[in-house]
């Protein structure tokens, strides 16, 4: 029983509410734990290398290859086995994780920044500005990305920065469209009108009034773009257009396994990098979905009806 004095409803802060909602779903917790483990795994690549005494590119022909010259299966010395050149798969996986995460996060963030800028400008100004930018987005979306990527790589030669550039170029449009739509509805809100009537300029309205209201889609879509970029990088590396061998990357490792049908005798060469790729992208996707539900509970009508009454 509380005292009848007019005590305001104690509302949980939005951060606390979000964490509570996130914590309710075991799949999201599992995804988060997995992502943290992958990050730790990637960061500790040098220590793994030191512990095992193996480098990522050195070939251990004496112990890492059988007498027939085939890779050895996982054993005490090589926990995840070796590849066709007798290199340690565990160490290569760890260094490959560094590449995947760097490319994934960096490309997603850069693409998000471009998408936010273009989307905000298109959505806020409308008119011909919107027409030009929207058509540009349509144009980028209709370019066959793999063909274009291969052409670029064959002209400039494969490199990490080119991979990131290509991924960014083909993935900012998603964010751009989402932000444009949001801004178009936000700029008709009365609080924007209030700012305009006070004499605020377009920059002030865009950054101070509109941008903070975009935080939810920005967080969610950036998170969802990370797995896309990771897969994109793996695809490029698989085709030999991404990371330059012998530097390890998950896509490159898969390509090595596929070459010469080696996976028929050494299944771990496909399974280990393949499952790492699968679970990493899955974890980021689950996290993105979970963040969307937790930050923006509008998709769940039952809870919304109940929340409305609490106010």
């Amino acid at each position, binding site marked *: *029983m*509380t*005292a*009848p*004095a*007019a*005590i*305001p*409803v*104690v*509302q*949980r802060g939005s951060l606390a*509410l979000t964490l*509570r*909602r996130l914590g309710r779903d075991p799949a999201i917790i599992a995804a988060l734990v997995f992502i943290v483990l992958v990050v730790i795994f990637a960061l500790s690549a040098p220590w793994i290398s030191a512990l095992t005494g193996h480098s990522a590119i050195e070939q251990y022909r004496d112990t890492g290859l059988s007498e027939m010259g085939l890779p050895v299966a996982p054993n005490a010395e090589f926990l995840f086995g070796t590849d066709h050149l007798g290199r340690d798969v565990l160490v290569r996986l760890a260094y490959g994780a560094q590449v995947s995460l760097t490319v994934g996060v960096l490309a997603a963030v850069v693409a998000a920044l471009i998408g936010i800028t273009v989307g905000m400008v298109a959505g806020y100004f409308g008119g011909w500005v919107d027409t030009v930018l929207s058509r540009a987005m349509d144009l980028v979306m209709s370019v066959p990305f793999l063909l274009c990527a291969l052409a670029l790589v064959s002209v400039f030669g494969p490199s990490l920065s080119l991979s990131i550039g290509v991924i960014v170029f083909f993935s900012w449009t998603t964010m751009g469209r989402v932000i444009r739509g949001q801004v178009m509805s936000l700029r008709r*809100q*009365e*609080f924007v*009108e*209030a*700012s*305009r*009537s*006070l*004499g*605020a300029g377009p920059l*002030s309205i865009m950054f*101070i*009034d509109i941008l*903070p*209201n975009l*935080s939810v889609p920005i967080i969610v879509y950036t998170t969802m773009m990370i797995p896309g970029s990771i897969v994109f990088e793996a695809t490029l590396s698989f085709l030999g257009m991404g990371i330059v061998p012998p530097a390890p990357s998950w896509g490159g490792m898969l390509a090595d396994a596929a070459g010469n049908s080696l996976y028929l005798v050494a299944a771990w060469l496909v399974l280990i990098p393949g499952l790492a790729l699968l679970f990493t992208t899955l974890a980021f996707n689950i996290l993105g979905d979970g963040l969307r539900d937790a930050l923006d509970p509008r998709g769940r009508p*039952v*809870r919304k*009806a*109940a*929340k409305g*009454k*609490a*106010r």
Partner: protein
Amino acid sequence: MAVLEARHLSVDIPTEDGVIHAVRDVSFALEAGELFGIAGESGSGKSVLTQAILGLLPNAIVSGEVLFEGRNLLGLKPAELQSIRGSRIGMIFQDPMSSLHPYYTVGSQITEMIHAHEKVEKPVARRRAVDLLARVGIAEADRRFDSFPHQFSGGMRQRVMIAMALVLNPPLVIADEPTTALDVTVQAQIVALLDEMRRELGTTVVMITHDLGLLSSIADHVMVMYAGRRMELGPSAPLFAAPAHPYTAGLLASSPANYEAGAELVPIPGRPPSLLETPAGCVFAPRCASALPRCTSEAPPLRVFSDGLQSLCWLEGPPADAAASVAAVAKAPAADETVVKAEGVRLTYGAGSLFNPGAGFEVLKGIDLELRRGETLGLVGESGCGKSTFARVLAGLIPMTSGKVALLGRDLGSLDPRAWQAMRREVQLVFQNPFGALNPRRRVGAIIGDPFRIHGLAAGAERKREVQRLMELVGLNPEHYNRFPSEFSGGQRQRIGIARALALNPALIIYDEPVSALDVSIQAQVLNLMRSLQRDLDLTYLFISHDLAVVRHVCDRIAVMQAGQIVELADAETLYRTPQHPYTQTLLAASVATPPRHPAAGRTLVASHVPEAA
């Protein structure tokens, strides 16, 4: 025999913040053929109550008993409830725009109701639907049967909704705020139609509304709810003439229609309680003017009076009539200085198209208006008449097509952008929707400080001091400087909006329906604040509203607008007593006020049930 009887009905809704006790121990009974009104402010549980009865709240915990045609509705299976909904109990919802399916014709949506519950041939169903459409006042019903909802106006759609609710001739119809989304003149027609249909068909009607004036004109019995509890129940006439519960009395005293123009309103102080809490005493005690010491600690008894009123209160006699003791406050007459002068303002949308010049839609058709310093000018009209558009033209948010607006003697059309920017601070807007007008992601201090930031005035500690002074001025706690808008109630948000408008000491403040989204008791608080600010700071107001009672209360002069033109402009009282234009007369006739209060003669306390200690 009662058509519907609820006994000790309680509804609890579990949420993330805890269990909301939306309805607490509510009992009532409906006599056949009556119109039963449920009144209350938002959050009082009046809609939740009926939704729970119909089984429309899947995740709520409903306890008690609801007897309908000899069966307890709460014990029925979903399928049984479904067959009762529509055929035995009709529903009319608030928003006729969204309760009709946009992709089906109006007629097919009505016949679908018939086919869902009865086995009839298609032509028979069609004939029945057409008959009913004609009876609810749809002209050329046979032809309009095949129209789509978007081809109907709001009032026509609500007529269709009524036809849908009545097509299976149910003994009971529940109407949840059936006229809230409609204009006053349409509202009067719809209410008259509802009344006529129930007399003709003998239908029992439950009408949920926040509008006491409306209920007083048609309801037979009225139940007043507050924070999920039944505060007062009884026949309409004594309940409105001499309410037994202080909350009902407070609601009536909050309505500007019950005052002489210009009087200070007596609002109910404070704000509704959280439904998460379960106070030991009376829920209304913290806001009650007649509260006794025991009210906060002991649950109130049910008092039954000789004229049929039942009140959940410790008071044994009627509460004092707060409105009676208030005299009009004299206001300084407006100065002779002109603040704004609009001449021949026109606005056309879509004009100047290359292929079809001159085929635009004319929103404003030449408006002349003059505001003098210190006065309040009311701008009244129904939705779509262009009153909000005109406000935005004055505020410089929408460029006008032709005409002239002079602010403080300077023609806005001749200003260069820099001077225009400086002029912006002279006209400020306060918006209707207290939820949309404040940026949800910014702190209140930053929102009220925006005018200073944008015009490069008062920075740092000085700005904070200014903001806190403004917050104090509008009756907000300055310590709440760092809160977000969502932590404030609707009335408080409107105060924030007013504080922001006041910041730069503008020559003109435009209020665009400032109180129409607020509950009556909160509305009175905000209206009082606006009046006292005007008195103290010598402000000039343009007050836009559809509510004539409110406009009459706050305004010195009233301009009536219809279809982009001002059809009548006169002093408030003159306009009220001797309206000239037929449109003004229609508007005035359509607005209903509660009947005047008079002391309850011969009312005696018959019984009183003290609740057992829970």
